[in-house]
């Protein structure tokens, strides 16, 4: 983070609750705190269903009607949690926050070609006018995201997963928003395309944009992120520098450690058990039933102190002579 510059996005105590029929409450996000600065990428990682996408929807004002939020999420001086739909639709989405969605094929309009959707977004968000100019601008937008221009006349269902993702990326970059929010931007892409996509996103970060990237692709996160936030059962349980997280000393929260170890290039062992039901979270550490390090103290909630929310974080190994020299 660049010291002295205000963050683009500042999230404080953000919580999201879903009210389900029968009075059930689902605690999808609880008490999230983080900043994203210009020129910085924060990767938000975690197990499926832990609340990552809900957090993104909250920032965009795209939560369903049965959701309740608390806390604040400041984009400049606008609180995204209390801004009205009109403000969000007219000045935020696409203009101040560029969204690269999960399930791109489902996000694109099925009945229209990629060209017509791209031209429409160009017309809506930029000053470009006139048929020929729009056509050219749409082609540039496609190229920028690595979408082959000879596929522009296709409909979303005629695209492979990888191409649909690049179409969605192209749309998100058109408005040149200061904050990019990418929800699983590399899903369905092969390794080369993952690298190209995240390198492209990194270029936007290096051009002083802020990027919040939600991903389950740990290799992509390692490639692009400056910092990593790990989410478990709706809470951020670890927030650390990417170098320390992926390299040495490695993750310090037992959950983050298990997630990294589950990779096929590591032990390929799933974390035992299941994530808790967000509708009935335990009072203490939500990871305790799956945690090999749990003791009695874990029945109380561990606060986020320093980089981890854990009563018994894994030790930061003593620095090796090589690490000190480096």
């Amino acid at each position: 983070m660049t010291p002295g510059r205000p963050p683009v996005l500042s999230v404080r105590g953000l919580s999201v609750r879903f009210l389900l029929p029968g009075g059930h409450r689902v605690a999808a996000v609880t008490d999230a705190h983080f900043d994203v600065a210009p020129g910085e990428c924060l990767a938000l990682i975690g197990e499926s269903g832990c609340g990552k996408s809900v957090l993104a929807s909250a920032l965009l004002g795209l939560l369903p009607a049965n959701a309740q939020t608390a806390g604040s999420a400041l984009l400049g001086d606008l609180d995204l949690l209390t801004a009205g739909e009109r403000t969000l639709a007219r000045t935020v989405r696409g203009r101040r926050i560029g969204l690269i969605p999960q399930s791109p094929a489902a996000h694109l309009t099925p009945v229209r070609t990629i060209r017509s959707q791209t031209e429409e977004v160009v017309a809506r968000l930029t000053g470009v006018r006139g048929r020929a100019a729009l056509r050219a601008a749409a082609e540039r937008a496609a190229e920028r995201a690595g979408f082959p221009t000879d596929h522009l006349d296709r409909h979303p269902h005629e695209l492979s997963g990888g191409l649909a993702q690049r179409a969605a990326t192209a749309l998100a970059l058109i408005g040149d928003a200061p904050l990019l929010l990418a929800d699983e931007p590399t899903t369905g892409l092969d390794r080369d395309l993952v690298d190209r996509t995240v390198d492209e996103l990194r270029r936007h970060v290096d051009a002083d944009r802020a990027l919040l990237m939600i991903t389950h692709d740990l290799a992509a996160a390692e490639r692009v992120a400056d910092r990593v936030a790990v989410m478990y059962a709706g809470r951020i349980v670890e927030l650390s520098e990417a170098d320390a997280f992926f390299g040495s000393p490695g993750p310090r929260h037992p959950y983050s450690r298990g997630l990294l170890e589950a990779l096929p290039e590591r032990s390929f062992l799933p974390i035992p058990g299941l994530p808790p039901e967000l509708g009935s979270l335990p009072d203490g550490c939500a990871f305790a039933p799956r945690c090999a390090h749990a003791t009695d103290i874990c029945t109380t909630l561990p606060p986020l102190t320093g980089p981890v929310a854990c009563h018994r974080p894994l030790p930061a190994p003593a620095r090796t002579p090589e690490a000190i020299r480096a």
Partner: protein
Amino acid sequence: MLELRTVTAGYDRRTPVVRDATLTVTAGEAVGLLGPSGCGKSTLARVAALLHRPDAGEVVLDGIRVHHYRHRAPRDRRTAVGVVFQQPRLSADPRLRLTDLIAEPLRATGRRSSVPGRVAELAETVGLTPDLLTRRPHEVSDGQLQRACVARALVLRPRWLICDEMTAMLDASTTAALVRAVEDYRTDTGAGLLAVGHDRTLLNRWCDRTVHWDTVTAPAAKTLA
């Protein structure tokens, strides 16, 4: 055996996306098919799953040539193959609760009485908790929905499984858990597997052998970087 013999397939006969693909999976074997994005892997996977009629070539399932695809395929052939796709949102009926999504193939084939037992058993296998089973697709995450899609693919005890990028949307732990669920099922039943994807590390770790798209298809096949 599941045999794909010089299969040519696509969406326009003049420009097939799969050309002369030949691939055999023997009983109980797990084969990984590795290829870059957009190469046509998913199209070939749909042919193998009897969901897409090839323009040329043939599919031979357990020694019998396949003549009918999609809803025209006879029931015993359709139910011999279980399929899991990459994007659960596109393959799951949004109106069904997860429990009904999993049970639907049982109901469709007149096995209503086995629904409660089989759904509970599979929910356990794929790691779905009871509260999730009563929700509809828009009320669960992609990973949770994919767990349900895996359970659905296993519900009729298929002899063959086709997994097209099954874990592409999933985190590392869910990936490892679902691969284990599929492998436990295969250990119990001896089912064969064709796993399509582009993650070399994953397919090598998962499958008995991994073949590359270029060695399976004719070199003329259109690839798109």
